[in-house]
């Protein structure tokens, strides 16, 4: 039996009168790459935000490793092991690439403010290991200029830097929000490789992506949302054949044949 990592249990999310998510229900298993797809406005990012604690579900609950997420503070959710990147790049623009990653690495430091001020050896050890790990992660995602300010990096590098920063928090689950937006085919292939590398390093991946070739090529399973509802779930091959999905994407009424 596969071990569930994240359970989205009948989640409904309303903003005033708008139902952004309507009884969405799916499970993410340890070690898989799950794709979350759907037409624009289907509720993908909303779902994502609920999973990372930005929004709180109106009904239902989200459990991570059996523990309820709702009501937890964001930094606590990060500590539980969920990390994410953003659809619109949100790096710390005035920090170096290395520092951006170190902010993520700081999250799981054990030593507190006091030992940092007293400059205890344990603090230095952590600081050094954080720096080493940040360098490793930059190499892992293929960024060769650690000292460069984040805003001076190329677009592709900035996207990869976000992945490195998210990985620095030592997540069990990495959520990628349209990581291939604006990428050319070669960059998409490289991203495909990177996502697999991340999974092989032991991190479960949730991927929101518009690019069907990337999603079909990299994911193990796919959940399809439309108008805030789950309309399909299965392997890429199953989802591709699913009439409801084809209808959602091509705009054909489901009852027309």
């Amino acid at each position, binding site marked *: 039996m596969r071990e569930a990592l994240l359970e989205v249990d009948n989640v409904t999310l309303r903003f005033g009168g708008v139902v952004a998510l309507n009884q969405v229900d799916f499970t993410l298993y340890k070690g898989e790459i799950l794709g979350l797809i759907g037409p624009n406005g289907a509720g993908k990012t909303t779902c994502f935000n609920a999973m990372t604690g930005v929004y709180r579900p109106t009904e239902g609950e989200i459990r991570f490793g059996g523990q309820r997420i709702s009501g937890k503070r964001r930094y606590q959710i990060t500590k539980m092991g969920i990390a994410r990147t953003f659809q619109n790049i*949100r790096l710390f623009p005035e920090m170096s690439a290395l520092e951006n990653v170190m902010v*993520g690495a700081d999250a799981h430091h054990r030593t507190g403010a006091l030992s940092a001020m007293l400059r205890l050896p344990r603090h230095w050890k952590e600081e050094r290991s954080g720096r080493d790990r940040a360098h490793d992660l930059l190499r892992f995602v293929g960024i060769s200029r650690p000292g460069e300010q984040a805003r001076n990096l190329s677009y592709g590098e900035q996207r990869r830097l976000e992945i490195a*920063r998210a990985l620095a928090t030592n997540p069990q689950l990495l959520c990628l929000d349209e990581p291939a937006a604006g990428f050319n085919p070669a960059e998409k292939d490289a991203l495909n490789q990177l996502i697999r590398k991340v999974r092989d390093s032991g991190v479960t991946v949730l991927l929101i992506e518009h690019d069907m070739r990337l999603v079909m090529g990299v994911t193990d399973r796919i959940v399809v949302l439309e108008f805030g509802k789950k309309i399909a779930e299965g392997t890429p091959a199953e989802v591709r054949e699913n009439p409801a999905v084809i209808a959602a994407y091509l705009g054909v009424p489901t009852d027309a044949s």
Partner: protein
Amino acid sequence: MDVAGLLRDFPELTLTGLEQGAIYALVALGYTLVYGVLKLINFAHSEVFMIGSFAALWTWQGLGFVYDAEAAPLGSFLLAVLVGVIAAAGASALTAVTIERVAYRPLRKRNAPPLAFLITAIGASFVLAEGIGVYTHRAPYGMPRLLQPEVVFQLGGWKFTNTQLIVITVTLLAMVALDQFVSRSRLGRGIRAVAQDPDTSALMGVNKDRVIFLVFLIGGLMAGVAALLWNILPIGVAKFNMGFLIGLKAFAAAVLGGIGNLRGALLGGLLLGVAENYAVGLFGTDWKDFVGFVLLVVLLMFRPTGLLGESLGRARA
């Protein structure tokens, strides 16, 4: 307008200006740090300074330090300073952190609009000032005179006094330390991260409340140090409303240098102090505050974000 007077007293006016400006700068740090992280102007910060002053005074009185600076040996001066700085910095930091905890944090939890914060800040400022006012019967209290100002060395027409050297050196040391802390340490990284993007910081595991606590703590400590230095100056008088003008000037200094910018606070403070004292030389003492604020307004016309621009995130501390 007394140009000849300004030229004659130029060295003295400059040094006095730097000395007072250094104190503005230390207080300005508190405004700038909090603004950088919360985009909030903490008007109660002037009272943080005032309470630091009284804390030092009462501690000295309580311990029976009575100073006749002429006769006081160096050892007892240093002891008085040590006790005073612990009392002032401790009381100021505690006040700053308490204000954040009692007044601002509840508003943050409820996502209150900026105006609610502003009114709360002004309210907290009045409550503290008036509270101390009632307690002290609104009377001014002279500080024990710790140090008789005297010229320690002379360079051409420039006569450096002991108080000037102490105040300016302490300020510069505090600035360098804070600069290093913010640009190099892990906690400093957290402060910059929250200043640049609070939401993303939280998602990267930064504990925003802790960063905010830290920022108020540091601002309070600096205001306490400033309060002690103020007491060392020959003008030293503690009064319940003493924070008002100094706080306003420190805030002006922060804006002048670029609010949210630590180095800007230093530059703005020194510039304001010097400009004020030149105004004293040119037009007389009555014009001191007038010129300081005219300078602020004129400068902002040309550099609306202040001399060094706004950014704590950039940590040009």
